[in-house]
């Protein structure tokens, strides 16, 4: 468990002012974290419009429930969890389950390719690769690989079995690897 980081005076003051309804402090807090949370929402959303809706709804929940922030952990971590929960709710579980059933028809190539060098890919390209994933793959990959949740926690959050979470992660990684390989090949040919 990482040690608790002391709050900066600026952030603590902002939070206190927000609790008293100070609109300018709310705006300042939003500006501090909106960029990072936009990235979170873009990773979970299927498209830009959905990501913006998640961001809007997530920040509304942050400010309406600010009194529940107990100051015992990272404020960024608290906001991030709210954003993720908001994102998971907006992604229809039914469509997720349909996707997860349809995954089998993908017929992924059980490739034995060597790991691809990914260092040439920019953030936007990586985001685009994640967005291309089917809903189920994308959610599991984001929650495990990027956020660091365990498969048990992912299973509880998405109402799926732990084993399903593991298998979908493997498939997500393989699909990403395949797409990265294709991108690099295209670049090599272009050069």
């Amino acid at each position: 468990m990482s040690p608790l980081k002391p709050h900066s005076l600026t952030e603590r003051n902002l939070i206190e002012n927000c609790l008293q309804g100070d609109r300018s402090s709310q705006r300042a807090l939003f500006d501090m974290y909106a960029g990072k949370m936009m990235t979170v929402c873009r990773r979970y959303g299927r498209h830009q419009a959905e990501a913006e809706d998640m961001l809007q709804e997530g920040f509304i929940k942050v400010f309406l429930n600010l009194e529940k922030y107990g100051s015992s952990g990272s404020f960024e971590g608290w906001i991030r969890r709210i954003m993720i929960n908001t994102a998971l709710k907006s992604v229809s579980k039914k469509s997720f389950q349909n996707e997860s059933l349809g995954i089998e028809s993908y017929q992924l190539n059980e490739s034995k390719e060597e790991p691809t060098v990914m260092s040439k890919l920019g953030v936007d390209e990586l985001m685009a690769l994640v967005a291309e994933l089917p809903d189920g793959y994308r959610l599991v990959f984001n929650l495990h690989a990027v956020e660091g949740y365990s498969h048990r926690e992912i299973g509880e959050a998405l109402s799926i079995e732990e084993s399903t979470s593991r298998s979908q992660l493997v498939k997500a990684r393989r699909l990403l690897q395949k797409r990265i390989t294709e991108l690099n090949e295209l670049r090599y040919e272009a050069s």
Partner: protein
Amino acid sequence: MNSDMKQVDKYFKDKLHQHESAVPADMWDRIAPALEEKSDKVRPIFWLLSSAGLIMVAGLLALLLSGEQVDNEAGIIEAEAMPISQGLTQHIDTDQIAATEETATQSENVEAVFNNDLASIDEVRNILSETASNSIQKEAATTNAKPAPTPGTTHNASVPSFVNHNASPQLTNTEQGNREFKLVITESHFAGKEKISNENTKITISKETKRYLLGIKGLELPTAKVENTDNPIGGIKLFGSKAPQCPSFIDERVGFFIDGYLSHDYAMKSYSGNQSYSNLRQQTESSLYSYGAGVRFSYFLGKGWGVRSGLNYSQVNERFAYDDPNSKTTKTILEVEVNEVGDTISVSQKIVEVEGRHTITHSNKYHFIDIPILLFYEFSLGDSPFYFSANAGTYVNLMFEQSGRYLSPEGNPVEIAGDDEYPNQYNNTAGVSLYASFGVHYILNKNIDLILEPHVMTQVNSITRSDSDLEERFTSFGLNTGIRYKF
């Protein structure tokens, strides 16, 4: 391969976890209105509470400070002609009734009183008492006396006849030694030899009590009008072969009453929405004894009808019980080795984990503050000290708070108040509920009644947010026990 896959994870995490993306310029403008709406929602509740409190305080003050002024000059004596009854006819025998000098004097006194609408009740009482007390001794002397004929009339000498003036009263007693006397005003008309009609006049004496708000004349409150036609005045019973029926006090009640009560309830929760989640919640939540308390002001509109309002607090209690299948119990095992004589040789400690079930229980509480707005009808059956009320209307919720635990859709026990993972699913207010009851009241004394009122109440709208996974509503059955104070 596994390490390669983890490298993929690490690469994506390093690149994306702390990356800041461009945010649309108008994003804050989309968020701010929702925050304004929340602060606006708080104010109406505050003003509602304040208004309700002010109204109740004003009502209490008005009742306490309202002056009761009895206007002694408002005594009204009304006369109503009614047919003579068969029974009474026997007591009025024209042979026995005679206009004696003394009786005429008494008749004149009563006539004078009778014609004066503004005479005080006490004056009438005194005159009638005097007249009645004298009539017993006078009757024997007047039995055989014949009435003096009135000029202008003809009569048959064999048939005693007389004509009384319209307002000439005759006084007679019914039984010697009986303390009841009847004031009879007779009017008989004779045409030829036959008696055409006998009429007797009933005297109705009523006293009007005026009530004024804050003692200010002109701000008159509804008054109680008491009609005293049966045994009202100094033991003298007014005319009537049958005792006049007691006026219903229900019909005559006006003004304000205040009820204070405790409520003993049992509330059942209904769920609708996701069926599997609904089943999960029903298995883990059960109703417990619930209770409430309140104050109600009643205002009578007349004929037993009226309206009620006030303030009601209720608490619904619920038990949450959940068996955690993933729980583990840690057990510490001490192994003690002893020799033949019982001496301890060695002690070792071993800690083992045993997979088992752990029951998580919690007391859930739902607090409501409501304003009841009810229409009622009260009625009595006969002269018993019991009367009954039928009440129906709505309860408007001002405040709704919850505490405790329930299962999330994922099957995890979470706090009702909400946390990072699963926000609060309930609304700030519970909306409107429908209420119906049937009350039994017992009159303890002139100011206090006891109340026993079984009731049923059901919520119209779901108490959960529109985006929650389930709709929930309470239906409660209960019994109010309380007292009524009549000002």
